[in-house]
């Protein structure tokens, strides 16, 4: 009779187990794991899934699941089997992924992984062996330990007000929209076992059909951890545990799902595709046209958030890049940005740039009063300071610095939008430093401004800023 033969989904001899008894498991007499393993192995064989299966062993008594299953095997960190399983399935959607976990692994240290794999509707199967105790580590309280149950860490019995209540995972997970199938079964009497076998096979079939996340909780005995003989353990399971962990189907959408509805897409490395991506990443500014910088530009741009300070830096940087120069741009970042002020440092040099931070700029742009107050003193002697005189009332020390006061925001308004004040400033900067020709800047801007409808306005803004300085 077939039932007396070992499933072909098991290894014939458990070589990985080592030791003298290589045909027996490492589980204790009366333990449920052996039964559950057998039902999984037989289901895999019947569904012809074994060779493309990946069994993820947890931490706990079933840490050695890989001793037995003749398929691909992972051993995962405590509680992380659903995360490992998620990745395995996403990387090969045709693999059959089994996340096999005990109560501590699944419902304590791995609660987050359990819930989120379910919530993403990962097309994997989770088998949850609930025996209300930590077995491998020596009989400590599990998240599913019963009220009153004694364990190594609840020597007087579990109490609701100290330890909390046994947690019911099927009921919790069934509140999520994504899971396809959630059932709790038991290994108590033979009727239970028949139902358990059916549920395990159904869960695996759902996965094989690409119908989504399946979860089967198997209430199971641990005579050693419970300090009972196997018969007493079975009776306690049936009489006591099933009152707290009622059997049944908590969710079943399998008949309402199309095949492969939850199958994700994955493509192996394809050089041609990557090359297209890399090509797209290249700049649109056109070929390098080497220009000569009259000197290094070490710029600081500062103002309110929303004035386009960072974009001003980016525009100048890309003009510098097209001119074949070394360029760096560094923003003040983080919460200070959300507070309404913005500044960035930009360096252009014909040599390698050392520090990207500009503590002592030779060009300072200020588009608000606090920036003038804060940064003017840092500008090197003879440096240039460009002030948006529409916004900033104060003026800078014209004896020490080359001061350009330009009503950039007013000019921008005349051009059509206050948003191009930064480009008016850019025109003024290029004119004041003679770093580039205006034509070179304009053709670069044309290439990098994404909204083509805004190009004309930006061209006018740039030219107005440039002329303001040159014709002054």
């Amino acid at each position, binding site marked *: 009779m077939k039932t007396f033969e070992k499933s072909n989904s098991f290894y014939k001899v458990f070589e*990985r187990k080592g030791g003298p008894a290589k045909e027996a498991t490492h589980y204790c007499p009366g333990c449920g794991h052996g039964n559950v393993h057998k039902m999984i192995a037989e289901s895999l064989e019947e569904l012809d899934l*074994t060779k*493309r*299966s*990946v069994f993820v062993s947890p931490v706990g008594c079933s840490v050695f699941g*890989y001793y037995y299953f003749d*398929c*691909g*095997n*992972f*051993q*995962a*960190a405590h509680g*992380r089997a659903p*995360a*490992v*399983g*998620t*990745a*395995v399935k*996403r*990387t*090969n959607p*045709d693999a*059959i992924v089994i996340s096999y976990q005990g109560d501590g692994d699944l419902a304590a240290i791995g609660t*987050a*992984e359990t*819930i*989120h794999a379910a919530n993403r509707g990962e097309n994997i199967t989770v088998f949850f062996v609930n025996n209300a105790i930590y077995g491998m580590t020596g009989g400590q309280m599990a998240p599913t330990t019963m009220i009153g149950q004694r364990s190594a860490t609840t020597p007087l019995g579990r109490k609701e007000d100290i330890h909390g209540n046994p947690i019911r995972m099927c009921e919790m997970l069934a509140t999520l929209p994504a899971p396809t199938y959630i059932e709790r079964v038991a290994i108590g009497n033979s009727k239970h076992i028949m139902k358990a076998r059916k549920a395990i096979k159904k869960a695996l079939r759902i996965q094989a059909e690409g119908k989504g996340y399946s979860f089967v909780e198997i209430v199971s005995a641990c005579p050693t951890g419970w300090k009972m003989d196997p018969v007493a353990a079975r009776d306690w399971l049936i009489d006591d545990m099933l009152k707290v962990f009622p059997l049944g189907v908590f969710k079943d959408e399998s008949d309402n799902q199309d095949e492969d509805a939850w199958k994700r*897409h*994955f*493509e*192996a*490395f394809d*050089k041609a595709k*990557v090359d297209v*991506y*890399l*090509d797209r990443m290249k*700049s649109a500014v056109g*070929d*390098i046209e080497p220009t000569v910088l009259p000197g290094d530009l070490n710029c600081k741009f500062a103002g309110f958030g929303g004035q386009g300070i960072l974009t001003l830096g*980016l525009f100048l*940087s890309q003009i510098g*890049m*097209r001119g074949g120069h*070394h*360029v*760096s*741009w*560094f923003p003040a*970042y*983080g*919460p200070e940005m959300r507070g309404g002020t913005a500044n960035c440092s930009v360096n252009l040099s014909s040599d390698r*740039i*050392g*520090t*990207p*931070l500009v*503590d002592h700029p030779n060009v300072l742009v200020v588009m608000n009063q606090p920036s003038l107050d804060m940064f003017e003193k840092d500008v090197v002697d003879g440096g240039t300071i460009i002030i948006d005189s529409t916004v900033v009332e104060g003026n800078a020390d014209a004896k020490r610095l080359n001061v350009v006061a330009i009503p950039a925001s007013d000019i921008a308004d005349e051009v059509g939008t206050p948003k191009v004040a930064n480009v008016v400033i850019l025109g003024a900067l290029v004119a004041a430093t003679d770093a580039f020709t205006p034509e070179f800047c304009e053709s670069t801007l044309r290439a990098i401004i994404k909204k083509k409808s805004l190009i004309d306005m930006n061209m006018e803004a740039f030219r107005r800023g440039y002329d303001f300085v040159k014709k002054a």
Partner: protein
Amino acid sequence: MAKQFMKGNDAIVVGALAAGCRAYYGYPITPASEIAHAAALHFPALGGVFIQAESEVSAINMVYGTSGMGVRVMTASSSPGFSLKQEGLSYCAGAELPCVAVNIVRGGPGLGNIAPEQADYFQITKGGGHGNYRLIALAPNGAQEMCDLTMKAFDLADKYRNPACIMADGITGQMMEVVDIPEGVTDLPDHSDWAVTGKAQTSGNLISSIVLEAEDLEAHNLKLDAKYKEIMASEVMYEEYKTEDAELVVVAYGVVSRIVYSTVDMARKQGLKVGLLRPITLWPFPTEAIAKLADSASNFLAVELSTGQMVEDVQLAVNGKVPVHFYGRCGGVVPGGKELLGEFNKIMEGVTQS
């Protein structure tokens, strides 16, 4: 043109995809989030995987899963998040899984702040997780290297079947520079001899870090140790700048090395014989190169964005031959050139005690 002006964080994603990386698992955190943003955009578009995991812990364990399938995979975070990945990195090292983990280091300890620091040096180079293991650690100092060293990290990870790590600071992550867009890889290594792919031909393989018997686990550790010694002998990378005649050798990496380039030039203009040794691999550390310079230089100075971590490796390398000084700023304070020049002068005048 074959260049782009981009953030260091974005350049990491370009390097990763060019290296054939197919999956990214991460969790948002400043100042590393741009890496996740770019990955979310580009990985799925290229048929790969992007998952914003429920936690850093889940993310690194997803890395374990894809890596165990022999597929190139990465994660990225910043200091507090990187701390959470330590358990998973130890598992990856134990199971000999290649992967790339990026740490855009911010200020600590605890929640600290989001400003640049280098105070995760000990964690990354000495092993922040449990057990005898090492991370291959690369320290880029600009956007181009964020791209190129990410590619290199994938190669080293595969070559040695070990996690490789990019350690950068908040400035190097946030700064934009000109990047030469690289040529992508042509072929990827075949890992079907050990990977578990969910296909029949690899169904006999096992990904695991558990070795129950003491003698067996010792043998496993010795095997790993032999591999680490090979990496130390073969994979050290560093850059020297004006060290030939240097009396003072400054040792600095990451953004600090950028500041030191400029300061060395300032010092040379004053006639001070100062040079820079920049470790590019933090582990393996350029111990021999420093030991050799200790024969000619009269003083060393380690400059870090920490209260003194890498300086211990410099001291070990110099081995008492000449004084090793330390200058560090932390909490997000970055030293300026003039400040460092002052330190150089103090040492050269013999004012500072070693």
